[in-house]
């Protein structure tokens, strides 16, 4: 599978926070091509590569879950939904979704016709209803079933792809790319694919505790520059890896990563955050006695919409940078 295909395949699997079992099973199977030591613990996928006792123990993390909704009530063919994670309510009217019931049921987020809405406003979180096209939705759907965007990942021009859930399937793709780069080098490390990032980084809290690494490298998406964004807050699509600098990250590692990128000619941008990073790295840095944390982020446009865009060349840059960092840590 080439990288574009891998990214699209990963993004094509659902996994709203709390309901990550299908994407977890898929990733476990892919990881088993590289190592026999793979398990699913508390929903997290954990895979050990090489000898466990070698120091420093490096953990690579990306999150399995994606934003979506959960079913809270019924009315005939409609299901009431509540957001899971930070949804952009501006985009909800008539949005296509899939309800993961007894079988996958396609649906549409209800919206009033313009001439009947008294004022033009963004939908409230408690106005979310999904039209399932069923006479009785309860026949196929239960309370607590999850709902994800129905937006297949599609290749765009060149090396870009567009779809729902690239946050953070792009990060998972980076980790597979690293496994591929290092497969003949016998470098020990642990992979964590964690649940519940979108709902307070819960899987990272437990996964970080169980794995107990010395260094935690987080692969998540960050903002890519596009119309309406501030350039100072953003990376550039196709501009390479975003290396995190933040009070909660290990400065020495950030500097090492930057030096490697300079030396190897890997495209990068320093992503400077004045506080926490908004990623699982925040959890790792205060897990147990505190793990030395770093972020290597993939620039992404239109975050938390069904039409997120990443450039696979950026995924490659992130993987090359991390692989080189790991080689040097074990020298």
């Amino acid at each position, binding site marked *: 599978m080439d990288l574009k295909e891998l990214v699209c395949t990963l993004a094509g699997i659902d996994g709203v926070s709390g309901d990550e079992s299908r994407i977890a099973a898929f990733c476990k199977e892919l990881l088993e091509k590289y190592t026999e030591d793979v398990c699913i613990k508390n929903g997290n996928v954990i895979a050990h590569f090489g000898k466990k006792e070698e120091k420093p123990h490096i953990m690579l993390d990306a999150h399995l879950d994606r934003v979506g909704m959960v079913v809270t009530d019924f009315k005939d063919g409609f299901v009431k939904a509540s957001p899971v994670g930070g949804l952009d309510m501006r985009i909800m009217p008539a*949005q296509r979704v899939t309800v993961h019931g007894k079988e996958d049921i396609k649906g549409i987020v209800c919206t009033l016709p313009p001439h009947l809405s008294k004022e033009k406003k963004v939908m409230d979180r408690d106005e979310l209803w999904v039209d399932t096209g069923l006479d009785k939705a309860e026949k196929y759907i239960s309370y607590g079933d999850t709902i994800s965007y129905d937006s297949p990942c599609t290749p765009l021009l060149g090396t870009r792809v567009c779809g729902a859930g690239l946050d953070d399937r792009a990060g998972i793709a980076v980790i597979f790319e690293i496994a591929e780069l290092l497969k003949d080098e016998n470098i020990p490390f642990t992979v964590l694919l964690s649940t519940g990032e979108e709902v307070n980084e819960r899987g990272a809290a437990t996964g970080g505790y169980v794995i107990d690494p010395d260094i935690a490298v987080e692969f998540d998406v960050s903002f890519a520059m596009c119309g309406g964004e501030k350039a100072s807050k953003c990376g550039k699509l196709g501009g390479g890896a975003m290396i995190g600098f933040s009070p909660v990250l290990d400065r020495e590692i950030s500097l090492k990563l930057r030096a490697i990128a300079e030396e190897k000619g890997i495209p990068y941008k320093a992503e400077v955050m004045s506080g926490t990073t908004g990623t699982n790295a925040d959890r790792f840095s205060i897990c147990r006695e505190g793990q030395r944390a770093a972020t290597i982020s993939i620039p992404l446009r239109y975050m938390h919409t069904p039409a997120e865009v990443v450039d696979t060349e950026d995924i490659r840059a992130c993987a090359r940078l991390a692989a080189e960092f790991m080689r040097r840590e074990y020298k």
Partner: protein
Amino acid sequence: MNKELLDTLLRELCMINGTSGREEKVREYILSKISDRCECTVTPSGCIIAEYKGQKRREKKLMISAHMDEVGLIVTDINEDGTLSVDCVGGVNADAVIGRCVTLENGMKGCVGSPAVHNLSEEERKKPAAFDSLYADFGTQDREDALKYISPGDNVYYENNYHVSPDGYIFSKAIDDRAGCAAMIAMIIENELSFDTTFTFVTAEEVGLRGARTAAYVADPEYAIVIETTTAADIPLSEGAARCCELGKGAVVSYMDRSTIYDREMFALSRKLAAENGIAWQTKTTIAGGNDSGVIHISRGGVRTCAISVPCRYLHTPSCAAKAEDYYAVYRLAVLMAENIGILG
């Protein structure tokens, strides 16, 4: 009534892209289906006038009409970063476009973007999307790169995803008004009508009922039946009369909307025929919307006009929802009206 044919025609027509002014692919499809059965001419404004020959002649000419165009987007400018400024063709709400996958008329895939919700202020998050802040992104690197593939004036379409639910609900773009086109094609193919009839497949309804004005002038009928879709708001967010009409309750026969006060006798006849033949029918509980009847009923010296519509949720979005049984009811009622309109003299 051939349900299989009606289903196939609707699906195939909805999958074709054709915004107002760009109906050529829809027109080609329709002509390929009917030109061996009707004498067809295409007017300067792109409408098809199809003269159907029955076994019997009418005393007064009947025109049956539906529009070929759909709402969509048009590229208005190419930005330095390779994204495209877009505007709506027809009545499209920006909030039904933001964050969606779209297709350029040349088949290139892309999406409609906006800044991440994370970076918006509380106030900005509550502000509905507007076209002047939206742009389409097809993965082009910059303006120069984009110009290789895209020109201002190109059309951008909703990504289609025609879906029929287990209970017969149809989700698709462009049901408005490909349902009307499909019904008319089926009437022709199935030889449903015993009388001569003029079928008009018209352009540019969504930008001001433009094609129908010219088609009605050319056809010069005494009676007209418009086959359309109409807004249903039978969702949990609305109650009572505000629901307009409901899916599963049958064909919608209108007495008045924003563009037309319909012919009273035709309104009465359609209700009578529906009742006598066991066809489910309903009318609208709000005076809202409008369709080509608005220009047809005042064409030349006046045309006696009725509209028979498929109730449809989420009109003008990438996912309209209609119910197959309503579409069949519209078809049957339109055929009965066409066969019996002579009663009115």
